[in-house]
């Protein structure tokens, strides 16, 4: 774990060494607020829960998380520090994991600063705090999923814009896999098993399941294995760069 920690510490500190962290957190919080209060009409609903707030998380993550992930590898390659990083005696998996965990922890920090809305909703009524906690866990897991996808795609290019755009598209497909938009198309002709499988890949389906207040092992396994899969792809992509 020592190599992972070394990479993690450097990466995590790097967010706060530049305005990146502050700009990101401020925009994240403003966007969360704007969607919850103005688009979602949080007060008008007259219900003391955060389902409106969490309902926008997948859509905000869709753009904000690839913005974090795009630089993870693309920037290292462009600056030439990739050569330095990969010639240190660190296993590639440790470097991949350290970078991912640092970025994930950073999105965790941004998510943490949404706590005033939890306080607000408790002030206004008596919400199901267990469900809210579960939603936060689900939200963080979902952010990890988006991030793993973005990080892996970032390793495939040294152009951050390409990394961002491709990540948004792939993340979008994972988000809406369970939505009528996609499922209606398949339901016309595909067998039920296939439709269920596709729907099973959806971030929304799993996130909504957790948000209802039930942290089901299947949902945890889903996000865990999705993250593991894309980290493995990330390792392969980084390793492939060595062959030129």
């Amino acid at each position: 774990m020592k190599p992972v920690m070394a990479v993690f510490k450097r990466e995590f500190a790097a967010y706060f060494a530049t305005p990146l962290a502050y700009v990101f957190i401020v925009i994240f919080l403003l966007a969360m607020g704007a969607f919850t209060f103005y688009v979602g009409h949080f007060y008008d609903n007259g219900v003391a829960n955060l389902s409106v707030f969490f309902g926008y998380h997948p859509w905000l993550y869709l753009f904000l998380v690839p913005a974090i992930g795009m630089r993870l590898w693309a920037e290292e390659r462009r600056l030439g520090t990739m050569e330095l990083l990969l010639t240190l005696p660190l296993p590639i998996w440790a470097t991949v994991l350290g970078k991912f965990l640092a970025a994930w922890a950073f999105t965790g920090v941004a998510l943490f600063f949404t706590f005033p809305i939890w306080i607000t909703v408790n002030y206004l009524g008596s919400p199901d705090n267990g469900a809210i906690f579960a939603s936060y866990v689900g939200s963080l897991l979902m952010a990890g999923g988006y991030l793993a996808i973005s990080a892996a795609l970032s390793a495939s290019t040294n152009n951050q814009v390409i990394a961002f755009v491709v990540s948004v598209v792939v993340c979008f497909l994972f988000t809406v896999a369970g939505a009528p938009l996609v499922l209606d198309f398949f339901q016309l002709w595909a067998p039920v098993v296939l439709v269920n499988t596709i729907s099973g890949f959806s971030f929304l389906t799993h996130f909504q399941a957790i948000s209802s207040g039930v942290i089901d092992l299947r949902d945890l396994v889903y996000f865990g294995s999705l993250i593991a899969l894309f980290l493995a792809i990330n390792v392969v992509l980084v390793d492939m760069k060595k062959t030129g």
Partner: protein
Amino acid sequence: MITLQALTKRFGTFTAVSGIDLNVGKGEVLGFLGPNGAGKSTTMKMIAGYLTPSSGRVSICGHDVETDTIAAQTALGYLPEGAPAYGDMTPRQFLGFIAQARGFSGAEVKNRITAASAKTELDPVLDQPIDTLSKGFKRRVGLAQTILHDPPVLVMDEPTDGLDPNQKHSVRNLIRTMAAEKAIIISTHLLEEVDAVCTRAVIIDRGRIVADGTPANLIARSRHHNAVTLSLPLAQLAAAKATLEQQPYVASVEEGPRYDGAGLMTVFPRGHELIIESVSTLAQQQKWDVKELYAEAGRLDDVFRALTTHDTQRVRERAGAAA
């Protein structure tokens, strides 16, 4: 301590490095010379484990770089081309990261940073962001990173590139002080650098080794080796040239620049013979007013130019081969 066996790297149809065999032992400082694009950096990247060879193998202190990567990289200090570093960190933070990545912890991290920054004279800028440092300091941050763990093997891609003459001098001193205990490879464009720090020079061209020897050895292959340069008043120049050209030991005579009523002339011997005594005796007999007379050791750039190809020619050849 560094062994390269039939090391080859192909990028598509282009062969960047073609079957290089090399052995570098403790106490050797090997100067890696070659024109841009000859395969120097590609070779060094393969030694460092950043690029995987197409065929052949590299081992560092007995550890195969491909199969025993971590052990090999632990024994190696590597300075990539351009000395990349994380610009938003200060040298102290950066070296701290390198130390931790290399498995040091606690007080040892601090000691390593102190020792490495003292050797590379980084102390005054340790707490300024690397992005704000001058080119010379940036390069030295890279050097500090390379020697931080006191590795038995050092591979440095152009360690003095972008340094001023004073900084070059101190970096060369640093390399010399470490030389006895380590195996070192440096690449450079500066031929005087090879003379100043290297115990061995290897010239590569188009991915192949075209010369390998001590710097003195290579210099002896120069056409200037044992040539005699003399300066004479302009009035005597033409006659002296004619006389010299008739001597059996002279291959050719070339006129050099003229200044202050005198002209320089370089006399090339047949077959690298030492001819300075003969020329000097001749000058006395002929009563030439010689202002200067000296034998040359040779010029490394002669050898370099004779053995390597110009980049435009290489690109043309490659385009021709592809067509």
